[in-house]
């Protein structure tokens, strides 16, 4: 029961099932879980009763749910027609004839769709809070940082900075008080990995916050969640209350001398607030305008005190690393990009949803094998990663393995994990305008290159789209892009030209078709 399930009508299905089970006096438990990841097939119902195979069903309405009770639970046989692969079958969307190597590997999403996120006991039953226990009893703060160093974990919020390094800077910084911040702003349109984790397994993020806070020596942790995610906010607030009750948050955590409190702060609909310095300004109750770095947050962050900020997915990786050891994690993925990455695959993909794959898996495997490509009769044209800061990757480059470096070489970025599949009906000039329009609207306006440059680029793109462009306009676009990249104050302006540049790089023909005098 996450936002997508509820949007698809999971609530009445749950009620119908719960009522029927009660009326018929059946001895089975009807439970709510978080998002499984197969969003386009919601509502999903998994049946796990004695004597019948454990089965997941997709697009279940009220009538179908009652039929499942009659047939699957009553007569113990799998109901044909709307069965989908189960959570424990890692290659979710695998279909006959597809490459069986294309498998998901769930670390971040380890509990999503399995546990009831509103019950801390469910999380604990699956090894939850063992990481912080080990840290307090065995490792100490330096030991935690060491394990994270061994793991090679890099930030999943965009830039891919090694987590241990940031922690270590914040640990070494002088200050009477330090802060740990969780970036749950998730402003990239088309991305919702962070929402799913917050809704489906909030304690995983809290345990990550505890470990990071402990490692850097923080006394308070802030969870900055965007206001557009009301269910995620609910779940995280509930989870903090539960953790506090069990002595996992607050004073003398697990009987140690570690004191650490967690507070939730809400965003208010500004994309730039995902940028770390703007986010801190927002927590302070101000306009979310970024400040130039250095000083980095590790030295002077929230209220001028040493602070560290990590993304939700980064934090969800931390507890398993501490529990299983850094070496375990380092073996997954590639040498320089270890572990897994969660992608929200949307757009024209046949099966859109969340997939978690080991780093190094190729884009083609993700799009074609795991997500089933595009609907029959269509052709994959490109994949967009990294949102407004990223770029498009044309079909003939899909064999590229997913790592921070390889995507950058193609003129895109890993970003936070939005992956938008485009087919032959999608126009690239239109996509470039969409993202540029987004950045123009979301620019905080503090620096001129971003505020004015973005607007000018937008004007030129519109002019080209209207059929009034000339080859000189392309040159001007590139020149403006260069200035924005170099001179903007924060990442928003520095990366805003990327979607334009990458469409120019791979799909120049689509621009040329529109120009008055072809190049």
């Amino acid at each position, binding site marked *: 029961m996450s936002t997508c399930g509820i*949007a698809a009508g999971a609530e009445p299905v749950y009620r119908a099932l719960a009522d029927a089970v009660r009326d018929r006096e059946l001895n089975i438990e009807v439970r709510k879980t978080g998002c499984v990841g197969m969003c386009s097939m919601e509502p999903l119902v998994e049946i796990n009763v004695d004597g019948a195979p454990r089965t997941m069903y997709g697009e279940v309405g009220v009538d179908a749910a009652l039929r499942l009770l009659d047939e699957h639970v009553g007569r113990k046989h799998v109901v044909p027609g709307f069965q989908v692969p189960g959570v424990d079958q890692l290659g979710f969307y695998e279909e006959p004839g597809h490459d069986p190597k294309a498998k998901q590997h769930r670390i971040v999403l380890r509990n999503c769709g399995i546990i009831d996120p509103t019950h801390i006991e469910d999380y604990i039953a699956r090894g939850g809070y063992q990481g912080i226990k080990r840290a307090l009893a065995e490792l100490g703060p330096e030991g935690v940082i060491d394990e994270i160093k061994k793991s090679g974990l890099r930030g999943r919020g965009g830039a891919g900075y090694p987590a241990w390094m940031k922690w270590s800077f914040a640990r070494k910084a002088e200050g009477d008080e330090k802060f740990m911040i969780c970036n749950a702003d998730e402003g990239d*349109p088309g991305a919702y990995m962070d929402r799913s984790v917050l809704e489906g397994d909030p304690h995983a993020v809290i345990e990550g916050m505890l470990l990071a806070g402990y490692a850097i020596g923080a006394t308070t942790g802030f969870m900055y969640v965007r206001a557009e995610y009301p269910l995620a906010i609910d779940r995280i607030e509930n989870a903090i209350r539960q953790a506090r009750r069990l002595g996992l948050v607050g004073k003398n955590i697990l009987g140690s001398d570690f004191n650490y409190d967690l507070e939730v702060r809400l965003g208010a609909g500004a*994309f730039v607030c995902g940028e770390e310095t703007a986010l801190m300004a927002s927590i302070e109750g101000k306009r979310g305008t970024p400040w130039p770095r250095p000083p980095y947050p590790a030295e002077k962050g929230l209220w001028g005190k040493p602070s560290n900020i990590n993304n939700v997915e980064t934090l969800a990786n931390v507890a398993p690393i501490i529990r299983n050891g850094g070496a375990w994690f380092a073996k997954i993925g590639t040498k320089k990009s270890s572990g897994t990455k969660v992608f929200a695959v949307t757009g024209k993909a046949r099966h*859109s949803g*969340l997939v978690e794959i080991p780093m190094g898996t190729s884009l083609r495997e993700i799009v074609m094998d795991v997500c089933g490509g595009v609907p029959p009769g269509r052709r994959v044209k490109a994949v967009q990663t990294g949102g407004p800061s990223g770029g498009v990757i044309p079909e003939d480059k899909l064999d590229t393995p997913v790592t921070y470096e390889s995507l950058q070489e193609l003129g895109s970025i890993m970003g936070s994990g939005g992956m938008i599949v485009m087919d032959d009906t999608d126009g690239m000039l239109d996509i470039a305008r969409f993202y540029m329009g987004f950045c123009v609207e979301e620019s905080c306006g503090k620096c001129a290159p971003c505020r004015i440059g973005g607007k000018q680029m937008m004007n030129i793109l519109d002019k080209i789209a209207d059929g009034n462009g000339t080859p000189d306009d392309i040159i001007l676009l590139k020149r403006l892009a260069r200035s924005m990249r170099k001179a903007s104050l924060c990442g928003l302006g520095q990366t805003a030209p990327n979607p334009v540049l990458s469409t120019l790089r791979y799909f120049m023909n689509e621009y040329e078709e529109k120009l008055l005098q072809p190049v």
Partner: protein
Amino acid sequence: MSEATMVPDISRTVQKWRKKRGSLIMALHEIQNAYGYVPRNVSLQLAQLMDVPLARIYEVITFYNYFRLEPPGKNVVSVCMGTACYLKGAKERENEFCEQLGVEEGETTEDGQVHLQSVRCVGCCGLSPVVVVNGETMGKIGPEDVKSIIRKCREEH
């Protein structure tokens, strides 16, 4: 309730947040949740009770898209304009809403019944295109759904 007759009680909100650091935005959230927008007289009170200049409060309200200075319509229809939804026809859906309601994006119908706005990705991209109606997220919105959403909004009031 007209604004003149409304005697807002924000003392509890203020009490809760006054002592906490960086709580202005949280207090504004509570106020908007209670009234549907941030009324001017409430901002004035907030300024006094929390001891912040009114200008600071307005500076914040006007920066963030989420806060409203005007009351919205009785029903709020938000069309997601995130990338996934955009690719799946969100713009067309929005145009249909505009046409059938006779308003532009960001406006309220003359009878005050429906406020139409576009929002950034609501994180439900797997079901795109997505529309949020009075806080309820609805996925896979087709042209025929536009009419029924409008009808439902009008019937309920």
